[in-house]
């Protein structure tokens, strides 16, 4: 009896040991860790490069959510104010309808984030926190075509930007020419080589915000009287039109990034051919 009990106990212990061994052998073994390659990513709103209104991001799929869990967590969980009134609205055409509420799906609950590395540099951690704080909070839903949980306030599409730039170009060019501030200088010696670029910025009182700055050439050449005179005439043209007052489309003052600098390139007609 005692002997049989002993053999039974030994056999059970052997079975348990074999089971433990088998379990250990078949368990998942992670591969040796490799150094992580940091690839900077530029997340871009589609509205910045196309006219296509970006669809408000859907809830990320499980695997994507796992990959971007921290980012998503950070921005989706933040309190989101409504887009401000200075959201760029360039076209007279009515803005596209806002996306329906139901299209915006809340990101699903994420798995518990992996435990953060304990050896994080506290300074970097604080910087990251600051960046997160500075970032405007995203709207939870509407905000039309330019709203996205990624970028928050509305952004101009590339097509709108181009149209606005063309409008601003036309306004400025038309005033310089129609008000006879800038006229043809083809009769100057070797006129085809003459060119002067001034950088300007306008304030909303119809004047320059700052004195025009000569950019090209960087300095007025001392030994080149025709170029000197050409630069002087370009500067006078700006002063003359500034005295008369600039008229700019309101879109100019909404262009981003502000302040919006413009380089004015003065050339004679013969040099423009």
């Amino acid at each position: 009896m005692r002997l049989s009990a002993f053999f039974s106990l030994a056999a059970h212990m052997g079975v348990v040991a074999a089971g433990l061994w088998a379990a250990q052998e078949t368990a998942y073994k992670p591969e040796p860790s490799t150094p992580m390659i940091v690839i900077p990513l530029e997340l871009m709103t589609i509205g910045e490069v196309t006219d296509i209104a970006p669809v408000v991001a859907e809830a990320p799929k499980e695997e994507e959510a796992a990959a971007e869990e921290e980012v998503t967590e950070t921005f989706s969980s933040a309190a989101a104010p409504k887009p401000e009134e200075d959201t760029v609205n360039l076209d007279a055409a009515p803005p596209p309808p806002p996306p329906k509420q139901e299209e915006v799906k809340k990101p699903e609950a994420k798995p518990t984030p992996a435990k953060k590395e304990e050896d994080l540099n506290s300074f970097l951690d604080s910087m990251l926190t600051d960046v997160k704080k500075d970032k405007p909070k995203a709207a939870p839903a509407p905000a039309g075509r330019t709203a996205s949980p990624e970028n928050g306030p509305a952004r101009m599409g590339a097509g709108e930007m181009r149209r606005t730039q063309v409008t601003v170009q036309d306004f400025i060019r038309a005033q310089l020419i129609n008000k006879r501030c800038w006229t043809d200088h083809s009769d100057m010696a070797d006129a085809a080589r003459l060119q002067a670029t001034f950088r300007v910025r306008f304030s909303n009182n119809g004047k320059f915000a700052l004195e025009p700055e000569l950019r090209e050439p960087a300095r007025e050449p001392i030994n080149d009287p025709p170029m000197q005179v050409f630069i002087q005439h370009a500067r006078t043209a700006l002063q003359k039109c500034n005295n008369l007052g600039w008229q700019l489309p309101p879109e100019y003052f909404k262009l981003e990034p502000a302040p919006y600098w413009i380089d004015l390139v003065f050339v004679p007609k013969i040099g423009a051919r």
Partner: protein
Amino acid sequence: MTARKTLIALKNGKDPMRQFKSFVIAIAAMMGMITPAAAQLRVTVVGEEYVPMRIAVPDFEADGAGAAEIAAQLSDVLRKDLASSAVFELVDKAAFIERDLSFDMAPRYPDWQVAGVAAQALIVGNVIINPANNNMTVQFRLYNVFGQTQQFARQYTVATPLNWRRLAHRVADDIFTQLTGDAGYFDSRMVFVSKTPGEDPVRGRLAIMDQDGANAEFLLAGFTSVINPRFSPTDQRILYGAYVPDPKYPGATLLRTYLYDIETGRQEVLAEGPNSMDYSARFSPDGRSIALSRAVGGNSDIYVIELARRTQRRLTNDAAIDTSPSFSPDGKMIVFVSDRGLGPQLYIMREDGAQMNCPKGGRDTTCRITFDSGRFTDPVWSPRGDWIAFSRQGDGKFSIGVIRTDGSGMRILTDGYQDESPTWSPNGRVIAFERTASRGAGPKLWSVDLTGRNLRRMPTPRDATNPTWGPLLKVEAAQQ
């Protein structure tokens, strides 16, 4: 966004070096966000329309006995000079708002900026006659009205008020230079052949005048059949041809080329070869040599003669008629007329006669630059070097035109019944020429801007042909 992502990645990184690099990248990215942006928009502004520059020239102030009259006259000549140029448009004196201008005080710029005045430049001057020695001083300031700055100021002093007219031209040249970047041309003179209406067309007398037509007078009373005068580009000498009695054949005439110094009155026969005839002589840019056509046995070729030693070089040797040479301003090239193609066309060649790359391809000692059905004559290389002026006969008209030195960009500036004999102003911006308006009409002198604008009649006492524009006169006044 980039910075944030980078930081997130950094938080997960393990390699300290990679962490550090990522940190640097993150900092740089954030710095980039606050760095003043480059211009976001570039607007090219092409001057479409030529508009003369509006310039206001109130009467100069006066100080001293007789100064008021001279100041008024000087101001008037200055205004006429500037108005004669295509560059400027004078503001009507009646439109002036500020009338109490003082030479020693800055003007009230807004008064000159308002619509109706809209002067871009303002000239304020002063004439002082010193009672002690009768010296005259002319001071002036040039203001940039829209820049609200004094752009330039100068003062001249001369020994006698009698020189006021030249001082007016001098001031005009200074202003022209300041506002255009080119040298002026107002203080210069012009020689031409004066014709008496109804007289034999061959007859003509050499005459000289200021470029504005003032102070016209005859030169060389003894010669009555003068052609093709050419001013030296450096001094007051001229070349000209004259028909004189041929000593070998009584009753016949001979064409001679003379070199004449206007200031000293000295002249000499320049070239006269046996059994040859020299004509169409023109100075080199330094005034030390001349290029001319020499006809021998019915064939004309181009020669260059150095004036000091009278050495001669033959540049062309062709059965065709080569004539009317004109130097480029650097003296290295010559443009001339040849009928070696079909009809008279323009050719260029090196002054040393060496081979060159032709604008239309290939290498040769001469290169044709016009390929036109017209007949080209009188080519003159611009003092600026960028254009060649010519007269062209074609389509039943005579025209004055310009062409680039590589044969491109030909433009006809004027045409009429007979426009010919172009000559450049010393700064290369204006072309004077002779125009016969219709059959039987007398020839007159006209001028036109290089751009084709500002066609104007130049005043001459009688009919006139063969204008040649002299260089700027030397400054004799004390200049400060």
